């Protein structure tokens, strides 16, 4: 007669190994050197944090109209508050700023469904975001038709310009990057060599020389009289530069597609372009979304370099404001504010890309 085994009950773990005490013992004071490190880190924090908080929050002045209102001895956020519109929109006419808000509002509304897993039409929506939306945003920003007042690109500035540069840069660099990546993996030696040369050239030179070239030298390469907008020229430089990086990201994705996929497509009778468009690229691009987001973050930070060629992106407009005699001496506030804006954008994007990465490679946890 088989015995029926009565399982032992689960017992709670000994108190020393769980709870706050267990956690601290394991994570902070597990050994002598560890304890020393913990104390050192705490000392460091104590040295840094309280004064920083004191300066940025407790002693700070938040509102007012001029530097006279800054009496607290801490940060003078009045500076940021007074100039806030300019930091966001540059010289964009205030009466027209609703257009910018509308365009970005639309972008946010359109992006939200992409984060909803159950949403079925992600492909179409992404396509619209990449192809349709830029056209709409362009007309909204620039105006000049459909009864909207024309706002020339040299009036765009601040965060608006930063976002335009980064957004257009990445969207336009993607298709070029895809073509370059395909070229680099091509069987045709010349196509391959040209793609490699192009990619390595743009990856090898600093962005500021590229920007310098596109902003002041480009007309030298074109027939006399052919000339276009300064913003557009900066964008061309950025796009060339970015597409080289994008090509390498996409190539990573292409390499990850197993050979069997190509063979299955060939066996079904699909030709090169259909294989790429229907089978390989949809998979490869999905794989490299985190990489694309990372490139975007890099680009977003790099847009600050346009200040060297005289476009007024967020950093440049802050510098402009810092040179205003009325606000001399507030550079720390200005830089901290800019840093905070960039940081929020970049940090949230990098978090997003990490989350995606984790979703893509499930498993392989240490």
């Amino acid at each position: 007669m088989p015995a029926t085994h009565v399982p032992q009950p689960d017992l709670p773990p000994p108190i020393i190994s769980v709870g706050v005490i267990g956690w601290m013992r394991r994570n902070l004071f597990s050994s002598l050197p560890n304890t020393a490190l913990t104390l050192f880190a705490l000392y460091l924090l104590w040295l840094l944090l309280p004064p920083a908080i004191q300066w940025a929050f407790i002693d700070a002045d938040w509102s007012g109209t001029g530097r006279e209102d800054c009496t607290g001895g801490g940060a003078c956020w009045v500076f940021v508050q007074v100039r806030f519109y300019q930091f966001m929109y540059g010289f964009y006419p205030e009466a027209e700023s609703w257009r910018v808000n509308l365009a970005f509002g639309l972008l946010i509304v359109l992006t939200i469904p992409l984060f909803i897993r159950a949403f079925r039409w992600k492909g179409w929506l992404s396509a619209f975001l990449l192809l349709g939306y830029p056209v709409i945003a362009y007309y909204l920003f620039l105006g000049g038709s459909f009864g909207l007042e024309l706002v020339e690109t040299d009036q765009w500035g601040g965060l608006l310009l930063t976002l335009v540069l980064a957004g257009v840069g990445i969207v336009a660099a993607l298709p070029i990057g895809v073509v370059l990546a395909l070229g680099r993996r091509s069987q045709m030696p010349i196509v391959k060599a040209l793609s490699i040369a192009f990619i390595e050239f743009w990856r090898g030179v600093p962005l500021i020389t590229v920007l310098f070239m596109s902003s002041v030298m480009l007309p030298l390469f074109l027939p006399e009289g052919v000339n276009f907008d300064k913003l557009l020229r900066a964008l061309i430089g950025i796009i060339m530069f970015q597409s080289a990086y994008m090509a390498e990201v996409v190539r990573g994705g292409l390499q990850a597609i197993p050979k069997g996929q190509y063979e299955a497509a060939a066996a079904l009778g699909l030709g090169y372009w259909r294989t790429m468009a229907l089978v390989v690229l949809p998979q490869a691009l999905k794989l490299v979304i985190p990489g694309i987001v990372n490139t975007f973050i890099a680009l977003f930070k790099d847009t600050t370099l346009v200040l060297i060629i005289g476009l007024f992106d967020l950093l440049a407009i802050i510098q402009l404001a810092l040179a205003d005699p009325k606000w001399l001496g507030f550079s720390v506030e200005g830089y901290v504010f800019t840093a905070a804006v960039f940081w929020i954008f970049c940090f949230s994007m990098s978090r997003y890309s990490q989350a995606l990465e984790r979703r893509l490679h499930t498993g392989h946890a240490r």
Partner: protein
Amino acid sequence: MAADPREDDLPSKPPVWNDPRIRALVFQIVIVVAVSAFGYYLFDNTLTNLQKRGITTGFGFLDSQASFGIIQTLVEYSETSTYGRTFIVGLLNTLLVSGLGIALATLLGFVIGIARLSSNWLIAKLAAAYVELFRNIPLLLQIFFWYFAVLRALPSPRQSYDLGGAVFLNLRGLYLPRPLFEPGFGYVFAALVAAIAGSMFIARWARRRQEATGQQFHTIYTSIGLILGLPLLAFLATGAPLAWELPELRGFNFQGGIPVIPELSALLVALSIYTAAFIAEIVRAGILAVSQGQTEAAHALGLRPGLTLRLVIIPQAMRVIIPPLTSQYLNLTKNSSLATAIGYPDLVSVFAGTTLNQTGQAVEVIAMTMGVYLTISLVISLLMNWYNKRKTLVER
């Protein structure tokens, strides 16, 4: 079976227009023609434009006198030097800041990267905060911050921070004493060389002895002792043949010694801190890429944590770390061109800046500048490929 299968009839030849090889060939010819035509178009436009506007062309300008001053020069340079010389000066300054930056960023990056994996929660979190803070803020902004905000906090030359009357820190930079070698110093130098050779010899001997007998020997301590001790002995024996040129306040500024200008320090700090954040992530990923099983296997064999790290984890992690690490080095070198924003006299600032402006020969100057960066990046990629070829794990 046929004697030589190659004599068998080949598959029939397809018609020319359906042969993929020929199609590929035609396509490539078209591309080459299109690209060359486009290239020629640009080239031709440029020539026409230059000619029409009467802009001088050619590299003759490199021999004319530059007649402007540069604050930091690693080779001899004066206002009477040529523009060609400004190129060298700029290039060396770029290499200096990149080289130092790479060293510092690597050091800091490894420390932070390892700290992120620390079992100490607080240290790990602080390291993570460091990485998230610095890699998400534009480098240019960081350079401005270190330059303008920190510069303001330093005292004027008259109120310099003074370390023992030898090292001074103020707004104008960090002033270090400059060693002046007197005749007998050659012996000290010889002793140093001898000590280095000696410790290399000891290291080899220790390795041999370990292989022969299994006994281990702490090479590091002996080497340090040797390298420090022997020159010191020689130094004392020859009657201390070294004088120091101390920086001293003369007129407005400190004169003498080795000055480190604040532009260099700010750029260096910004570049290192920024790049270190990326390197830390690379190091962390590299270590994590070595599976837990490797550590366990090493522990199960009785290897101590230190040996496990040295013999098992690091050699494997380095394979993963080195390729992205070099591309960070490349980025750092390229980013050093932001020097121009705070006036550190690097290649872009001196040559593609002042020289370009004084001579107006944008095409030549920019081409040379880009050429330098391209060469650096090519050299680094070649080294990288060579390393990868050597180090890839052997697979079936």
